């Protein structure tokens, strides 16, 4: 048994023993749970993939004369200004003004909020265009200027839903191609698309939220951020398999971090043909090995994690709740899976390679005494169901 304080002391003296969630599997196989739980202090988990419910608040400071912004565009992408005078919120899926969207189906969706945020973090110059109706103390009615992240007072990423515990696996059972947030799906189940880091994914390594809760410190694209709330659509009352690992979407996290500390390699604008724009987010979360039980949860391997195969041409849009089959991430990562007797080529929207890189960076930061653990001050909700929206007549 260890405490957060004991582990943090070891980190401070650069003596913490840290393994990634991929390395821990073989390590425990070799050493056994009891011995490994004594030796290992932290297991690092990570994920990298499009996470639509992401965005950031920025503050410009005041111009002379002052403006109270009521409408704003950054690089022609609408930013939400219904807050204080020079505060804005940029959402990841906001499409650039005048983009034809799906008028010429399937649309290309080349640029949007996610791309703006990537440019900001990369230190590139962006254009602000904003309007106002003018008031006595904020007389300016229009502003057009350029800026970089260094000109901003604050640029704080605030992502209402990241790190889905598990995720759907998408196929298209219809006879024409469809374009989704899981990529282009070929007709007659011509391909299959998944989106999870599997055995590296944070909440799959802590299925009952024993260490990841509100207040947990996280590595958010290079910044040292934290979990600020349960993620939207957080659902813990779900079907669970080996180790209690959910076999469907389940838990989510709301994350925040300072964009001035971030690396643009891990925040990327995403263009999904026929669907829209989004943003890929790289997250690393350390799991303190407080006891054997927590260690055991981190030994989950791709072969033990199952995900539901959903038909995105009918069952997903019509919310039928039907699952065609269940597959493991080991099968999905092999490149082909067998669904209903048919061999189907598989591919991913989430990058395991980037997740592995992040788990390695976080491991190195903890070993070097640069990243500390934070004990959550509140647990994520357990036994929570997902509500649906009923359309009233």
């Amino acid at each position, binding site marked *: 048994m260890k405490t957060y304080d004991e582990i943090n002391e070891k980190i401070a003296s650069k003596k913490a023993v840290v393994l990634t969630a991929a390395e821990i599997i073989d390590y425990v196989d070799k050493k056994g749970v009891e011995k490994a739980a004594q030796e290992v202090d932290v297991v690092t988990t990570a994920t990298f*993939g*499009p996470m639509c419910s992401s965005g950031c608040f920025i503050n410009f400071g005041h111009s002379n004369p002052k403006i109270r912004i009521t409408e704003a565009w950054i690089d022609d992408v609408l930013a939400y200004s219904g807050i204080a005078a020079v505060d804005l919120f940029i959402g990841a899926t906001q499409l650039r003004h005048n983009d034809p969207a799906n008028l010429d189906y399937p649309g290309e969706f080349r640029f949007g909020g996610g791309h703006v945020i990537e440019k900001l973090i990369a230190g590139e110059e962006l254009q602000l265009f904003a309007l106002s109706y003018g008031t006595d103390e904020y007389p300016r009615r229009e502003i057009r200027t350029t800026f970089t992240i260094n000109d901003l007072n604050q640029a704080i990423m605030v992502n209402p839903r990241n790190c889905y515990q598990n995720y759907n696996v998408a196929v298209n059972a219809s006879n024409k191609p469809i374009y989704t947030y899981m990529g282009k799906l070929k007709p007659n189940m011509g391909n*299959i698309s998944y989106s999870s880091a599997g055995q590296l994914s944070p909440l799959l390594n802590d299925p009952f939220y024993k260490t990841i809760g509100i207040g947990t410190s996280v590595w958010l694209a290079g910044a040292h951020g934290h979990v600020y709330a349960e993620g939207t659509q957080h659902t813990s009352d779900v079907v669970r398999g080996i180790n209690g690992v959910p076999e469907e979407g389940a838990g989510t996290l709301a994350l925040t971090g300072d964009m001035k500390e971030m690396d643009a390699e891990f925040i990327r604008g995403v263009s999904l043909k026929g669907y829209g724009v989004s943003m890929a987010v790289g997250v690393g979360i350390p799991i303190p090995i407080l006891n054997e039980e927590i260690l055991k949860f981190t030994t989950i391997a791709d072969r033990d994690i199952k995900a539901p195969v959903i038909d995105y041409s009918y069952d997903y849009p019509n919310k039928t709740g039907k699952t065609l089959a269940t597959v493991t991430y080991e099968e999905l990562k092999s490149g082909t899976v067998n669904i209903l007797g048919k061999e189907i080529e598989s*591919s*991913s929207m989430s*990058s*395991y*390679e*980037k997740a592995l890189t992040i788990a390695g960076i976080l491991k190195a930061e903890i070993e070097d005494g640069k990243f500390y653990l934070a004990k959550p001050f509140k647990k994520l909700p357990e036994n929570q169901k997902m509500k649906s929206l009923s359309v009233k007549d």
Partner: protein
Amino acid sequence: MKTRKLLLTFNKNSVEKPIVYHLVKDFDLIINLYRARITAEEQGSMILDVTGSEKNIADGIAFIEKEGVSIDDAQKSFRWDEQICTSCGNCLTHCPVDALHIENKKTMKVVFEPDLCIDCLGCIDNCPYGACQSIFQE
């Protein structure tokens, strides 16, 4: 027998020349033509495999150049930018020849093998990050 992949670039003066006909008839080369395009500015690009004896290929290339058509390395028609690629792998099921593939299942890193690429452009629309580009894309 050897096979070489060539990217031919035609200018305004050479764009109407029946190069492929002569490669077959005069140099006994087997042609596998992947993609050809003429722009509104009357410039043309063509990507093809030529198969034949080493001498015939060399003579064929000399003929092409004499006709005022320039030859480029084939991979210059299609470009995969490793720096932009995140190795998500969304392209994999859209690459019919596995030119884009994963070599090591432990790292899941996406790699590109230019010699296998047939310029179908299937990956370009399906890359969320814009890592794949071709001179043949619209």
